[in-house]
């Protein structure tokens, strides 16, 4: 169990972490998501005691590691392993690299040899022992770094943006490996990433880090569909953020007035409540007029005011009294004959909207 209790961290004048608190349970994959420079890496470095916080407590299995002596620190650190964003091969063979942590622990040679082979097998690099580490590709080296981290049989594996510098294929390999390792070795995995989708794929729980603060902690479903603030919503790709006022509520189905447009959403908020609506752009669908009957509560006509192709998808901005952003596949876009300035019909479910009460007027 790793706990942060009101941790503040400075680099010189700059406050990089502002009052950060969370706790990570044993055996879970816990992911910090945030843009570069938000403080994710610093959190991981603090857990590994590579930095010292300005104030606050950091507890590892109940021990406050900000207050312990070097000898004790090494004892606690030896139960963890960290993989850094930049794979950093040390001089010599892959074997020497992977064996390093065990050598520091003065494990005997036979045991080292056995465990190095075992770890290399776990990362799919069996037989790589004698290769020179610096000759490996980025993806291979990152796998060696993971093997190096797991040979010591840590309880906690810290992964700082492990795939940030890798190609898509290596990224996929590493991602599936992380899930596999966690299951096989029963590790607690603490991961940082700026890749939302990666966070969603791997994590049991996610903490969104924005500008040195933890904006929200929850399951990926909670974070992605029920963001608690504009900042978190933006971060996780919720692009439709609308402010409005509840005008009626019937058995948990609220009608919200947004700039004169009536939107129906699932919420217990009573009439008169100021709320913010969050919706993911994938949840908006388009249809040809009169062509379908839908269970969706919200059906609007609008005009397409922006079209941006993104790979196999298309991002559309539609003016339907309120401006909405939607993402659909290129194929649907073509089949429906959509185009810039064209009038279209769109719909979304009341359950696709996440309603948050607005307390302040920001």
């Amino acid at each position, binding site marked *: 169990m790793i706990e942060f209790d009101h941790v503040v961290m400075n680099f010189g004048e700059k406050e990089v972490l502002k009052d950060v608190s969370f706790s990570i349970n044993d055996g879970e994959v816990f992911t910090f998501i945030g843009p570069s420079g938000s403080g994710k890496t610093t959190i991981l470095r603090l857990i590994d005691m*590579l930095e010292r916080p300005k104030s606050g407590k950091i507890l590892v299995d109940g021990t406050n590691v900000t207050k312990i002596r*070097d000898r004790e620190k090494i004892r606690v650190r030896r139960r963890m392993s960290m993989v850094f964003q930049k794979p950093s091969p040390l*001089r010599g063979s892959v074997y020497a690299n992977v064996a390093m942590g065990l050598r520091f622990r003065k494990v005997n040679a036979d045991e080292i040899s056995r465990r190095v082979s075992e770890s290399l097998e776990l990362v799919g690099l069996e037989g790589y022992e004698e290769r020179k580490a610096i000759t490996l590709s980025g993806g291979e080296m990152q796998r060696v770094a993971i093997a190096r981290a797991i040979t010591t049989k840590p309880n906690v594996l810290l992964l700082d943006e492990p795939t940030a510098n890798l190609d898509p294929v290596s990224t996929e390999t590493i991602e599936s490996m992380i899930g596999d390792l966690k299951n096989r070795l029963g590790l607690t995995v603490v991961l940082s990433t700026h890749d939302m989708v990666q966070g969603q794929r791997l994590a049991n729980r996610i903490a969104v880090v924005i500008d040195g603060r933890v904006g929200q902690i929850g399951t990926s479903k909670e974070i992605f569909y029920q963001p608690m603030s504009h900042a978190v919503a933006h971060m996780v790709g919720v692009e439709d953020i609308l402010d409005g006022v509840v005008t009626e509520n019937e058995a948990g189905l609220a009608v919200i007035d947004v700039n004169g447009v009536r939107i129906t959403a699932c919420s217990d908020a009573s009439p008169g409540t100021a709320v913010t609506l969050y919706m993911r752009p994938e949840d908006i669908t388009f249809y040809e007029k009169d062509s379908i009957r839908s269970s969706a509560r919200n059906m609007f006509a609008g005009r397409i005011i922006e079209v941006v192709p993104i790979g196999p998808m298309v991002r559309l901005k539609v003016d339907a009294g309120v401006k909405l952003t939607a993402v659909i596949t290129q194929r649907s876009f073509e089949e429906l004959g959509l185009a810039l300035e064209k009038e279209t019909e769109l719909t979304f479910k009341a359950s696709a909207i996440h309603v948050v009460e607005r307390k302040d007027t920001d």
Partner: protein
Amino acid sequence: MANEIIDGIQQAIQLIVTLNPEVMDITARSLYISLSATLVASLIAIPVGGFIHFKEFGGKRGLITIIQTLYALPTVLAGLLVWLLLSRAGPLGFLGLLFTPTGMMIGQIILIVPLMIGMTLIALSGVSQTKQDTVISLGATSVQTVITIVKEARFAILGGIILGFGRAISEVGAAMMIGGNIRGYTRVLTTAIALETSIGDLPLSIALGIILLLIALLVTGFLFLVQER
């Protein structure tokens, strides 16, 4: 004059290929004194460099600046300093080391230690912070960290050691002042060249000069090989 030089070079080559005892004796002594000085200087410079690199303390910047200034310590100043220390009236006069090979070693050590500390510092800062963090995160104690990082920088550090040796074997000021150029005892390549040239024994001078150049060539070649790795 031109003939004299060509004759000199011919005779010099003869002195070398026939392994002239005096030439061999001077060469061996030069190598012995400078290699010993380099060895002792490494044993001082690498740990001190490591300490300066890994420890944070007040005045670190200033200390590094002083060390860098001492790269250019004039050899005669090092000679003067050691002479003052070792002369009969000096604080270490009782050791009787003036005009001995050991005294010359001390002079050369003083001359090259700053350079070697500086090169060690450059070598160690060439090891990325991520590597250092990796080593620490793998559970290294502070001693294990220092050893691992020094090993990681070993080729660059070796380059610094070779540079120090080059300065030691080629300097003449300290060797002359502390050693006194005593034939068969403290006469080394550089002091011999200075003397033989002044008394007109050009072939011997040239022979010794060629050997000094060859040593420099070997050293540079070795340095090149090391840094290629």
